[in-house]
């Protein structure tokens, strides 16, 4: 190949800049400086997001496996328990009981035995009471401690109590994740699924997923016609109509949820209208709120703009001549629409659907206010364990499962649409 410009390496004298530096070196330096400048501009925000957002989330996710508490408070008992064979069918020896009594006495000063009791109570109900009772009475306990502790509470004579304590004494645990997937340990220490009655979370995950799918499909069905209308109307008219889509988008979430409460409740506007029209008897008003219907209706309304906008921006770019060409070749309007127009909108459908699905799978406020019992989603249970039951490990485990689903979808969104192509408004 003949090159028009001479290769600098071949010439006896390399090309140099005005101040005598070889051009190659100077260029590399300039490029490096440019790169550093670009990085320098991004660093402040990157650090800010890292500290205010990333670290907190990592810190919370760590709580889903962290389990130092039992080992720390019961520091004398746990090493002895690890030498005990839990399958032997015998209680631990007197030394272990003595260590336990000492741990309880030491913990009484810091009042930390209650925390351990609560922690172990997640694994087996009864621990909380057992630990409270023991902490109260341990001061008067005299050797032999095995006898003394069993006198305080006969549960200390139950091997299962000791088995659970030994199992949950490791610094890291998977039991929160097992609980989040409706699993637990049986008497023999094997992982088993919970019985039907106490399976909550898998059902909840499925409910969250199918409700999100339903909401996404309803949004798609409602958004497609109006996005199409907006894309074919002349700009002046479509600019006016798109306000009707953008106003809900900009209106406070709580305003829209409040509006749906006013509309859907028993004494609300819609019920009044159907009663007045005579479709429903006054004493038989429709229950449309504090159940699944309320959540779905309100969430479709809230998320609809997120579907319309990406669809609209894709449909705007489809030349109308495609449809005319199909028709001129003999296609009926229906065939032309299905075979020509719809395949061209796939990118918009994908972008909108993933966006709406991601948003609805993690929704909290609307289900909390209009969802009642049957309309709550996984987020509501995370909030419940955060602020009411205080089982933070389980909240973190449920949260990290939800987060991984969202991140997979986010990754897909990036592959299909590209994050750089995300547009607002």
């Amino acid at each position, binding site marked *: 190949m003949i090159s028009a410009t001479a290769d600098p390496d071949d010439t006896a004298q390399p090309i140099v800049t005005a101040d005598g530096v070889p051009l190659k070196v100077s260029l590399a330096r300039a490029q490096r400086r440019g790169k550093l400048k670009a990085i320098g501009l991004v660093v402040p925000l990157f650090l800010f997001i890292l500290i205010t957002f990333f670290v907190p989330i990592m*810190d919370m996710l760590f709580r889903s496996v962290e389990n130092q508490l039992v080992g720390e408070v019961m520091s004398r008992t746990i090493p002895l328990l690890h030498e005990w064979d839990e399958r032997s069918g015998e209680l631990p020896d007197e030394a272990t009981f003595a260590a336990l009594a000492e741990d309880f006495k030491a913990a009484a000063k810091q009042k930390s035995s209650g925390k351990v009791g609560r922690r172990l109570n997640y694994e087996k109900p009864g621990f909380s009471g057992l630990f409270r009772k023991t902490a109260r009475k341990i001061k008067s306990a005299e050797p032999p401690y095995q006898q003394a502790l069993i006198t305080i509470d006969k549960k200390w004579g139950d091997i299962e109590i000791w088995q659970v304590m030994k199992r949950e004494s490791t610094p890291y645990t998977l039991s929160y994740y097992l609980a989040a997937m409706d699993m637990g340990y049986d008497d023999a220490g094997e992982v088993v699924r919970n019985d039907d009655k106490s399976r909550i979370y898998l059902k909840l995950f499925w409910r969250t997923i199918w409700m999100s799918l339903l909401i996404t499909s309803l949004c798609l069905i409602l958004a497609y016609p109006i996005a199409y209308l907006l894309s074919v109307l002349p700009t002046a008219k479509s600019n006016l109509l798109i306000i009707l889509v953008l106003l809900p988008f900009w209106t406070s979430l709580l305003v829209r949820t409040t509006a749906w409460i006013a509309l859907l409740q028993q004494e609300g506007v819609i019920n009044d209208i159907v009663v007045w029209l005579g479709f429903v008897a006054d004493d038989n008003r429709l229950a449309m709120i504090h159940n699944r219907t309320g959540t779905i209706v309100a969430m479709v309304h809230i998320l609809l703009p997120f579907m319309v906008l990406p669809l609209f921006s894709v449909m705007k770019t489809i030349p109308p001549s495609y449809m005319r060409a199909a028709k001129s070749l003999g296609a009926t309007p229906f065939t032309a629409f299905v075979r020509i127009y719809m395949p061209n909108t796939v990118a918009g459908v994908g972008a909108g659907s993933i966006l709406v699905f991601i948003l609805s799978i993690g929704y909290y406020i609307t289900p909390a206010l209009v969802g009642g019992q049957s309309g709550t989603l996984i987020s509501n249970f995370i909030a419940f364990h955060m602020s009411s039951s205080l089982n933070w490990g389980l909240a973190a485990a449920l949260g990290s499962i939800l987060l991984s689903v969202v991140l997979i979808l986010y990754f897909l969104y990036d592959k299909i649409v590209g994050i750089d192509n995300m547009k607002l408004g």
Partner: protein
Amino acid sequence: MALPAYTTPLEKLWHYTYLVICGLIFFFLIAPIVVVIPLSFNAVPFFTFTEEMLTFDPAGYSLKWYHEFFGSLNWQGAVKNSFFIAVFATLISTTLGTIAALGLSRDDMPHKSVIMGILISPMIVPVIISAAGMYFFYTKIGLSSTHIGVILAHAALGTPFVVITVTATLVGFDYSLVRAAATLGASPTTAFFKIIVPLILPGVISGALFAFITSFDEVVVVLFVGSYEQRTIPWQMFSGIREQISPTILAVATLLVIVSILLLSSVEMLRRRGERLRGIAPH
């Protein structure tokens, strides 16, 4: 959407059916927001239209709930907190977000899409997870139940919007303008404020408005990171809906609809101005 002359009657029928369907969907979108406004003037504490209201009897209407809103210390504190927190969160996220967007849109930025993905994640991660994480971490470092804590949290949630809008404005930005300024003797700082800032300002302002509404409308993080002292309007509405539902909430909702109309018109104006400007400028 005029119909061509060769349209068959069946197609005409379908066309009008389609327009009616679209009308109904637009009605579904806008009606719930509109219906809140008359309901907030209700004279009695109901969430529905009374007979007096439907017959346009003046006795059916009152400004009672607005008086209650403006007279209540709870709500006054909430309004003050909402603006205080939103303004500072917007300042932080707009400054950091704009600077980062300038870096991200340079051609020599390495690993652009990965970094963009990380910077945008606060928008994607379910807010309950962010709120839970912030609750633990901010408690640990003593920022929970402080205004600073809530401001920092809201700033983090608002930055993705600034990054997205400003990067979009910088697409097709003509960097030779900056070089031209430099050849005319402008220092990089002068060139930044005299050339870059005026050109990207519409994008920065609409990003700032997005960041503002994100903070102004946010409730989950405030519920977890804040306390009564940091109560914002959404915080107050959320607890109001949960505890005792009174039409005061509808009055607040009406005022918030007005705020959102103002914000929406500003963003639309900026967007159209930006489109006009870029339509003229050669790429």
